[in-house]
């Protein structure tokens, strides 16, 4: 299914229905390697739901997700493997492939959360160290009897390095929740990076930040893209940030995709202005 360029993520006709509410309707998206792609849209447009489908939190009602060329999530249409006789897909077989989020993380997806979800009783250092657990090679016995000393030491060194990259070394022994808001966001990103992802999904990384913090974050996101070679998909309401760093933008409204394009195209798009941006006068810088 993956032809052209090196595609990291491809979302194909994903629909997510909760009872009678269609949160995401026939949504498709493509993210190529090294890109920063943003999903924007008004509140309740289904952005976070789309994220949750991609990361395996929800099993979609219909649709497929490809990650690094492999089909990782599939509900075509939802149900057990059986031949379909009616409708547009007649003659094909229905499939379900519903991995849990941890399986996708192992494949190289990592995410942050809209309302920060750090491990509250633990230090900054431990928060990142635990994310390394997913990449362990030890089992319970070898870990208990410290047969994994080398691995553990390597992990600790990696965490130290990561801490210095995100600038949290000086607070590494403090409780995660005692950090100021902006640093908690950074910590969450660092924690996601610790799982060694190829795709990083950021859910409103600048939520609740002041303009100065937002600017810093914008730089920071660009920096981690270059430094870690990750591809980034983000949801954001701060238009300065989005227009500044995104290569492409998808706009959702009421679960439907209403526009797709480069920041310049999106800013001129009538539909987007109507639904979300409003009168654009100061979005230039």
């Amino acid at each position, binding site marked *: 299914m993956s032809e052209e360029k090196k595609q990291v993520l491809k979302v194909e006709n994903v629909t997510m229905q909760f009872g009678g509410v269609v949160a995401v309707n026939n949504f498709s998206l493509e993210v190529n390697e090294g890109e920063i792609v943003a999903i924007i849209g008004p509140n309740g447009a289904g952005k976070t739901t789309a994220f949750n489908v991609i990361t395996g939190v929800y099993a979609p009602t219909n649709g497929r997700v490809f990650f690094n060329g492999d089909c990782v999530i599939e509900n075509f249409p939802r149900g057990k493997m059986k031949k379909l006789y009616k409708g547009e897909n007649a003659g094909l077989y229905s499939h379900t492939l519903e991995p*849990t*989020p941890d399986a996708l993380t192992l494949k190289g997806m990592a995410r942050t959360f809209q309302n920060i979800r750090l491990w509250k009783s633990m230090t900054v250092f431990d928060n990142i160290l635990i994310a390394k657990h997913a990449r362990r090679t030890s089992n319970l016995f070898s870990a208990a009897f410290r047969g994994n000393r080398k691995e553990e030491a390597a992990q600790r060194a990696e965490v130290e390095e990561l801490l210095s990259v995100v600038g949290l070394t000086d607070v590494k022994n403090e409780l995660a929740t005692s950090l100021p808001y902006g640093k908690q966001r950074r910590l969450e990103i660092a924690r996601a990076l610790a799982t060694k992802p190829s795709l990083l999904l950021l859910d409103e990384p600048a939520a609740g930040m002041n303009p100065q913090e937002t600017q810093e974050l914008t730089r920071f996101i660009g920096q981690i893209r270059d430094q870690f070679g990750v591809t980034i998909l983000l949801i954001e309401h701060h238009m300065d940030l989005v227009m500044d760093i995104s290569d492409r933008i998808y706009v959702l409204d009421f679960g439907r995709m209403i526009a797709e394009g480069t920041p310049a195209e999106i800013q001129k798009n009538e539909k987007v202005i109507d639904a979300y941006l409003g009168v654009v006068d100061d979005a230039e810088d």
Partner: protein
Amino acid sequence: MTQKKSKKGAWIALIAVLAWLGLVFALDQLIKPTDKLGMLLIVLQKGSVYALAAVSMNLLNGYTGLFSLGHAGFMLLGAYTYAIFTIPDKNRDTVYQYFHAVVRFSIPEKLSQGMGGFGTALGVLIALLLAGLVAAVMAYLIGLPVLRLKSDYLAIATLGFAEIIRAVFQWSKLGPVTNGSNLLKNFARVSKFKLELGGTKLSLSTFVPVLIATVSITLIVLIVNSTYGRAFKAIRDDEVAAEAMGINLAKHKMLSFVTSSFFAGVAGATLAMVLSIAQANNFKSAMTYEILLMVVLGGIGSITGSVIGSMLFVAASEWWLRGLDSGSFLGIEAPGVFRNGFRLVVFSIIIMIVVLFFRKGIMGEKELPDLFRRKKKAAPAGKEAAE
């Protein structure tokens, strides 16, 4: 630097554990069970068993955040497994007086035929491990359906399991194995454990249960401080985040549940060893609540707390407050008030006071090394130095 520190910490811990075991061994020789201080031995025996049970429950309830109340059930499995496989052949028929026993071999006895005293000890050890394994296998089977449940629902399901196990073990149809509702006795028990050195017999009746508990708790501490222990805590703190960071919830919950039940089984077996009897009726849900109380009193999420909690609990209920039941307490003679049952009234009040003044238990989430660290004011070194 961290590496050096943790190595030093490990040595200190090892020396402390050895000193503790040496002390208990000495006490075992110095104090006769009939002495005035004889109660100390009983408190140490029972206290260490309960400490192990409490720590294993803490691993599940405190560290993984799975609220399970099936502990008595797993302890029962352990106690029965141990008892059934250590009753000497010649005693089989008197113990199973109403049934024809099916299991007709005793592991310590079989091994002692070839290896003497060492064989007996090895046999007891094997029976102990078997007790843990039976509990662990059962935990795996129960865990498959039950661990999908959360909080209160999990508690109810596991509580139900424990009650069912107790009823099944008393079922007369299973008499040939479990001796029905009659008790199992005459198996290898602590009062029989002796070490012969050059003609002098050294008592091991307190040392053995304390040794078992110490080794098991050390193992649990090692697990808790390993990468798996950290993953358990991550699940407790935020399941959604843990899953998103690549921690397989089903697998880790199962690991925690099975490990906890293994040690509960060992604790049950040790309890049978200490009490010299195994009877299903002793493993009521009240026992689970007692253990839960020890965990809560000591501090949920603190292993040191669980140990202190259970030692204090056992000491208070078995020893210090005894006088309240028998007429004189702290030199006060009041046979009219201090009668059977008054002890429990005072005990409940003490518990309420402790809970009121130590909201998070005696230790909170701190461990023993944390206390020393704070005294030395060695910066906020945090948990990492604990390896």
